[in-house]
């Protein structure tokens, strides 16, 4: 580098990097990419070669990855999957409402609300402890059998209620952790301005709490998308039940694989979104002091 160039770099705002170092960094980047791609190709080739060579492979391919079966069952499966999506779309907002309400009730300090607080605590303890499938069976078969006046006898309704109760308990704990994650000094600052307890929660604590727990909440959403399949035990023809029917019809499991693909097609974008959101939050925190 010439004296003039050095002087120009010092005077200007453009950063100066030694050209030799630039070349080294570029070489290093190219080499890293090449090694990565090569490693991926070799590993894939080995796995494919080993799997295809196994004696059972043709049978596996015929039973699980049969293109004709896939194509034949797919339209029906997509139609049935719409029910899963509807279950999810109905259950999710209700879960958020139940979860947030229970979390808030558990924080009430007025002694008048002691029964409510105890109820919320018992609810979370019970429904976090019982497997979701069991809750679905209990409500889906148990409640309609009671013949209660006015109670809907559609098992689908009770399946959704069971999902809401089961997930609501988890989400309540997530919200509670979020509320606890807001530093007490925030509450103090809000109260010092004259904001009431309720206003402090509404405008200062909850917005921060919800932001802090968005990634774990999304995680629970993803889990819920899959668990809509549990409602199949009650009889509604959602995607898992449809796949079961198709599979038993031809003694071929390809419809199960097709159903799995549908779930993955829904959960992967959601997972990536959750990852992106989490990374963005980390960046934002990093940017702060």
């Amino acid at each position, binding site marked *: 580098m010439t004296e003039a160039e050095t002087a120009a770099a010092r005077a200007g705002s453009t950063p100066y990097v030694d050209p030799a170092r630039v070349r080294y960094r570029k070489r290093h980047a190219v080499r890293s990419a090449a090694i990565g791609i090569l490693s991926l190709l070799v590993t894939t080739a080995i796995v494919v070669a080993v799997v295809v060579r196994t004696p059972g492979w043709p049978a596996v391919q015929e039973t699980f990855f049969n293109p004709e079966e896939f194509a034949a069952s797919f339209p029906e499966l997509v139609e049935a999957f719409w029910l899963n999506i509807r279950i999810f779309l109905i259950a999710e907002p209700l879960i958020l409402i139940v979860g947030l309400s229970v979390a808030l009730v558990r924080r009430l300090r007025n002694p008048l609300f002691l029964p409510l607080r105890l109820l919320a605590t018992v609810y979370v303890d019970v429904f976090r402890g019982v497997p979701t499938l069991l809750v679905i069976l209990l409500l889906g078969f148990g409640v309609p059998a009671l013949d209660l006046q006015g109670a809907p006898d559609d098992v689908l309704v009770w399946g959704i209620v069971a999902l809401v109760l089961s997930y609501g308990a988890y989400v309540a704990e997530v919200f509670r952790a979020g509320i606890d994650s807001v530093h007490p000094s925030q509450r103090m*600052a809000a*109260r010092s301005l004259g904001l009431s307890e309720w*206003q402090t929660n509404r405008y200062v604590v909850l917005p921060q709490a919800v932001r802090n727990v968005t990634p774990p909440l999304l995680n629970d959403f993803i889990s819920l998308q899959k668990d809509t399949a549990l409602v199949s035990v009650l009889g509604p023809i959602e995607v898992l039940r449809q796949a079961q029917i198709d599979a038993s019809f031809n003694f071929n499991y390809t419809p199960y694989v097709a159903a799995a693909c549908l779930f993955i097609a829904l959960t992967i974008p959601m997972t990536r979104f959750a990852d992106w959101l989490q990374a963005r939050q980390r960046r934002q925190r990093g940017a702060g002091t």
Partner: protein
Amino acid sequence: MSRGGDMSTVQVTAGVPMLQVTDVWKAFGNESVLRGISLDVRRHEVVVLIGASGSGKSTLLRCINGLEAVDAGTILLDGEIDVTAFKADLDKVRRRVGIVFQSYNLFPHLTVLDNVTLGPRKVLRESASSTQDRARALLARFGLLEKAGDYPDRLSGGQQQRVAIVRALAMSPEILLFDEITSALDPLLVGEVLDAVRELKSEGLTILMATHEMSFARDVADRVCFLNRGVVCEEGPPQQVLGAPREEATRAFLAHLLG
């Protein structure tokens, strides 16, 4: 223990003190922090609290704001509101008493402007447009107008603390409490925050502040109170307390501070 009610050097309004702290006790567990402290602040007066960490400065300020409940004693605001009454309406107290903390405590999810307008909008129930106009005017006065749309984490410590002062000021408090507001700041940023306090004094605000900035205290305070072991050990005009302290404890503290 001397009382500052009728100091001839203090040029403040006569009559009922803005703040009357009388024989206040406060303990945390078995640790007694305030041991019967008494202190008056008159309207338009700037009173500076000095003293070692643990001498009770912060606790006193928090008691005045109702953020901590006293164990005994009374705190009277403007001669009429008893902060220490068993059923005191603390939200009402806090509308009239502003406090700024050492650690700023801005709301990170709100812009600077929303930090400032939250109190007036939700507590004083003022319209959004009028609070925004007033907030902008206040921000402009403290050189922060261009930061109005930013989130607090984009601001320097000094800027954040000035926003915290503006946030307290937006409630039009009758007295402002400052709890070591420059202690968490980079030394280079202390000046801008202290300048903001000078500006407030020039407007006649009533201020009670805890600080370790002795030269600032000498400069701005109408009266300096040295707190020691939970009581006012010595008080008087800054020249006297800082320049020619009468009490041995004050001398020891100042000597220690100056190294």
